[in-house]
């Protein structure tokens, strides 16, 4: 070798191949908001998965001796007009809330990212067609479009999730397209083409990982509004069908008794707000952590 020996030669360090995802989770835990968001979310996911064992009562069983009873030792969150335990119903409702948030956002994200990447990468007429069609969807107010969709598809958990996914896909498509456009102009894209890598592989290997971070942040932030959108649909009677407990329809029923039994409104609303807060804070934390130049705690390093 006749190259200068001083550049790039460091003392022997052991070669370590680390999984890229592990530092991500570690950093998320180290981030204050991230730890809070993850904890609350984990709590709700636990309730969603094991609610049947945790809940003190059957959420749909009536206790005729305790109609509209205020919070007590037997019924922590009180009971509703049919004597059903509010705590058990809130726990049971978390299953729906978590499920809808994840299903609608992941479906919307998948559809949006595929559309956005294709539009951004191929450009031209493909871009115009995809972009305009997304603009049409975007022009409708979110909830109105979701209501129209549910009205067409029929009420129910899956249909409502699907409607929210369709309504949410344009925002993912936009973000994915914008990122794809900037990624496309990078030299490593040309380098990959020169290396002889095929277009689908380039899109998956070089485009997707660089498009995903901002999209994931958007997804985390969208979960809260998606969940709220579903609660609104369900409030309007377009969600799951009755006896199944659901925060939206619980609020809708509780509206009639708001003066005599405020706990019926407060409990599901508190659960809704807490979950939304967790999603929002977690979204912010994910954004901080996914920035390749982040400092771990979400703060800039102190300078002297």
């Amino acid at each position, binding site marked *: 070798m006749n190259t200068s020996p001083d550049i790039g030669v460091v003392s022997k*360090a052991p070669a370590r191949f*680390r999984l890229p995802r592990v530092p991500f989770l570690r950093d998320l835990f180290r981030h204050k908001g991230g730890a809070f968001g993850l904890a609350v979310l984990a709590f709700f996911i636990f309730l969603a998965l094991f609610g049947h064992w945790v809940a003190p009562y059957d959420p749909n069983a009536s206790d005729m001796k305790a109609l509209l009873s205020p919070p007590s030792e037997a019924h922590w969150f009180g009971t509703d007009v049919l004597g059903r335990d509010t705590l058990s119903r809130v726990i049971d409702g978390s299953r729906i809330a978590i499920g809808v948030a994840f299903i609608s956002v992941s479906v919307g994200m998948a559809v949006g990212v595929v559309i956005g990447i294709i539009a951004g990468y191929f450009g031209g007429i493909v871009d115009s067609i995809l972009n305009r069609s997304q603009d049409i969807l975007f022009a409708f107010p979110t909830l109105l479009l979701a209501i129209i969709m549910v009205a067409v598809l029929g009420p129910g958990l899956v249909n409502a999730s699907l409607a929210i996914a369709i309504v949410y896909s344009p925002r993912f498509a936009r973000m994915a397209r914008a990122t794809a456009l900037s990624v496309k102009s990078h030299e490593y894209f040309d*380098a990959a083409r020169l290396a*002889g890598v095929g277009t689908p592989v380039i899109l998956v290997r070089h485009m997707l990982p660089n498009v995903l971070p901002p999209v994931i942040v958007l997804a985390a932030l969208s979960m809260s509004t998606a969940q709220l959108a579903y609660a609104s649909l369900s409030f309007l009677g377009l969600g799951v069908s009755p006896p199944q407990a659901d925060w939206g329809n619980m609020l809708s029923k509780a509206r009639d008794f708001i003066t005599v039994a405020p706990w019926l409104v407060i409990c599901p609303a508190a659960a809704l707000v807490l979950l939304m807060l967790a999603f929002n804070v977690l979204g912010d934390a994910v954004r901080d952590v996914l920035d390749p130049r982040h400092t771990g705690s979400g703060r800039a390093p102190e300078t002297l």
Partner: protein
Amino acid sequence: MPSENRPLLEVEGVRKEFQVESRGEKARLRAVDGVSLHLAHGETLGIVGESGCGKSTLARMVVGLERPTDGRILTEGGDIWAPGKAGRTRRASFQMVFQNPSGSMNPRRSVGASVAEPLRARDGSKTRQAVAAMLERVGLNPDFAARRPHQLSGGQQQRASIARALISNPSLVVHDESIASLDISLQAQILNLLLDLQQEMGTSYLFISHDLAAVQMISHRIVVMYLGEVVEATTVEEFSRQPLHPYSVSLRSATLVADPKRERNRPHVLLKGDVPSPLDPPSGCRFHTRCPLAVDICAREKPQLRKIGNAHMVACHFPERTPTITEAVPGPRGTGANATETA
């Protein structure tokens, strides 16, 4: 037909036009306008010119990232845009090192994965050892393979880019301003590395730069471009002795000589104004708007690229009037006159 006797690279009358919109009107921008050149095995051809003269577009066409609007690019006599597998194989034998070292590697993949990519796209066997060997060859610690590009310095990133370009054993590596963003001591190191690698591997280089000293150090022959056209082509010895196109002379006098006394005394040709817009190139000789020697005929008639002397081509009506250069900037390659050569 492809044969060993044909030059490695032949560019024949290549033209590239872009559709652009200027003030609401559609216009055609001729980035490269009828460029022809050739390059032999193991040779380095330097291309110099101001920003916007079409150097980079030419580079991208040579490696097959852009398709020429007109003209052909041949390797060993075979068109790189031949349909099917033949064209693909030919394009795969060319690699490129980009200008921006930090942008030329995917920030989310390890350096090793980026370097291995050309190899993996071909067969995929034993890439790990090959990457380690190649990194060592360009003067990097093989352990760097596990790092991310942003954990490397600019010089290290550029070394890694060179490793990626060379790992699939290409016959030609195009350097598009590959040292422009490095500081001067790193530039010298990278140039020496390129010379060493060329000796070891016999790779040809197409070295594009606006840095005349660097081009003169590394190249065997030099092509000067102005507004998408070749204005002069000659060997590096001829070029450092006496360039014949007024534009080349002005480029030469823009490079500083290390000795201030000589620097002050040597003739200077200063250019006025900017490069004219390639949307609306000047009539006749494209350089006549800025040429200190321009006369009427220059605005009317376009000078052809013609041969003057041995292996010296110039596109000028009056090459004999070009001011002589008595001082020589860094010596041509192979003379051993400059210190960097022996470093």
